[in-house]
């Protein structure tokens, strides 16, 4: 039998495969080894789980881990709920809804560092626009970024400001794929607006929900640039997350510890996102 050459040769995959393997897969696999060492980029000394022990012994490193989870859950939860509500509002035939969509979406495209710097100025405790506006209506605004109890949540707010447009746009696309027949049928059955939202819209927009939740959760867990631009993880370590801990340990020359932080982040994303995806797929709605 003559084996005819396929018109779809495997060498087409080769350039991408080489780049991806060398610069992404190999370092990821190697990180498991390097996280078990004391490492100065040239020599390694195997120290077992000591980096991980140190990580979980230091309260500020553990706080970084906790903050990461808080940050990711808050941003993705709010983006999901608010994104859906905004999308419903912006598809209801409002006056000027095209312009509204544009305005909400634009911050998604803007430099995160630029947004971070702008908001750290707007959130200045005494002279910032936010507190000046609050003072005008008689409220004494807090130090949004200088109060350790508040800093992380202020950054969450800015993350929402910047990212809500993407969630909204994904939901608008999801809503557009729902056939109006369902609403028609629900109306004939005498459903109220609330019933239509919870019984028709929410179940049928589920693919978009899966995308928004997964995307914003992964993004939130990996978040670095906004936090770095606004507080550098401070005051103290109050707004540190895993990604900023990884950067700080790298800067300090603790490469093994920094890589251990990477592995922890990797495992955290796996532990949260994989079961969630499996659960989403199991509960797929059938029509």
């Amino acid at each position, binding site marked *: 039998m003559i084996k005819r050459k396929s018109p779809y040769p495997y060498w*087409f995959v080769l350039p*991408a495969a080489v780049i991806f393997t060398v*610069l992404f897969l190999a370092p990821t696999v190697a990180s498991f080894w*390097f996280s078990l060492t004391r490492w100065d980029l040239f020599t390694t000394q195997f120290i077992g789980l000591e980096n991980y022990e140190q990580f979980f012994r230091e309260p500020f490193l553990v706080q970084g881990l906790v903050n990461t989870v808080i940050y990711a859950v808050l941003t993705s939860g709010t983006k999901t709920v608010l994104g859906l509500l905004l999308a419903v509002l912006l598809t209801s035939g409002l006056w000027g809804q095209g312009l*509204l969509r544009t305005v909400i979406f634009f911050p998604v495209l803007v430099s995160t560092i*630029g947004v971070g710097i702008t908001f750290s100025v707007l959130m200045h405790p005494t002279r910032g*626009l936010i507190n000046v506006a609050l003072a005008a209506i008689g409220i004494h605004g807090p130090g949004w970024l200088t109060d350790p109890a508040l800093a992380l949540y202020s950054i969450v707010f800015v993350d929402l400001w910047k990212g809500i447009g993407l969630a909204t746009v994904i939901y608008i696309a999801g809503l557009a794929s729902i056939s109006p027949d369902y609403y028609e049928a629900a109306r004939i059955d005498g459903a109220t607006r609330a019933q239509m939202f919870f019984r028709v819209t929410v179940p049928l927009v589920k693919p978009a929900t899966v995308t928004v939740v997964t995307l914003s959760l992964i993004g939130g867990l990996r978040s670095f640039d906004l936090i770095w*631009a606004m507080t550098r993880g401070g005051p103290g370590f109050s707004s540190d997350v895993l990604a900023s801990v990884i950067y700080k340990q790298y800067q300090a020359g603790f490469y093994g510890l920094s890589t251990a932080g990477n592995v922890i982040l990797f495992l955290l994303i796996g532990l949260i996102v994989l079961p969630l995806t499996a659960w989403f797929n199991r509960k797929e709605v059938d029509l």
Partner: protein
Amino acid sequence: MSRRQLYTGIAALAACGVIFVLPFLFIFITAAKTKQDAATLRFSWPVEWQLWQNFMEVVQTRNYMLLLAYFNSTVITVVAVTLLVLFGAMVGYVLQRRPSRWNAVIYGCVLAGLMIPPAIVPTIWVLQLLGLFKTLSGMVLIQVAYGLGFTVLLFRSFIAAIPRDLDEAAIIDGAKPFQIFFRVILPLLKPVTVTVIVVQSIAIFNDFTNPLYYLPGRENVTVQLTLYNFQGQFQTQFNLLFMNILLVTIPPLIVFIFFNRQIVAGMTAGAVKG
């Protein structure tokens, strides 16, 4: 349109104006102020407009570093996006057209690329071994490696809509594999290619974290890094800091004005990099 829709629309626009437009207006007016005027951080019209003066000053800072940064960022973005389109389309094509047990492996890699945070220090170590650390070529390859997952996903689903009859016709005409791809398939991929180009250029141009790690040093500075460096230097010169933010915001704004639809399509079609 009902009266109610009109009023809700006006109310929503007003709220949006305060929440989303005001910060951009603040950037613009602060960028136009004098040093003293900007230092008050007030939301007021500039006492004296000096947009052009501030612009020249920011451009000239540190020996025209911003121009160098624009050059570097443009080179990285253009080369990386070109390679992404080419290599990503090739993978998506074979992945869609030739089912085999390798497909599962490739899919696994695509998902890994979308989800897993890059292992930073080991990557620096690999780059150093290859002599690519702190080089523009190294940065380009990193952006390609990190952008492939999204690109392959997008191309694969688009290629599924191109009938195989076209391939067969080309094969009967005696076309070689690369001729089928470059002469028949690639031209048909134009809409999705534009999407990939627009979405990835914005992502790569706006990237801060990767240049921070893989491209340190003055001669390799990128646009986002200058902004970060100026944040420290211009602590007392908010007019210049905000002029810099304004300049960094303009390229995505232009792309947005021309490619609004493609951006939205691209962002909703697949997943977006974190």
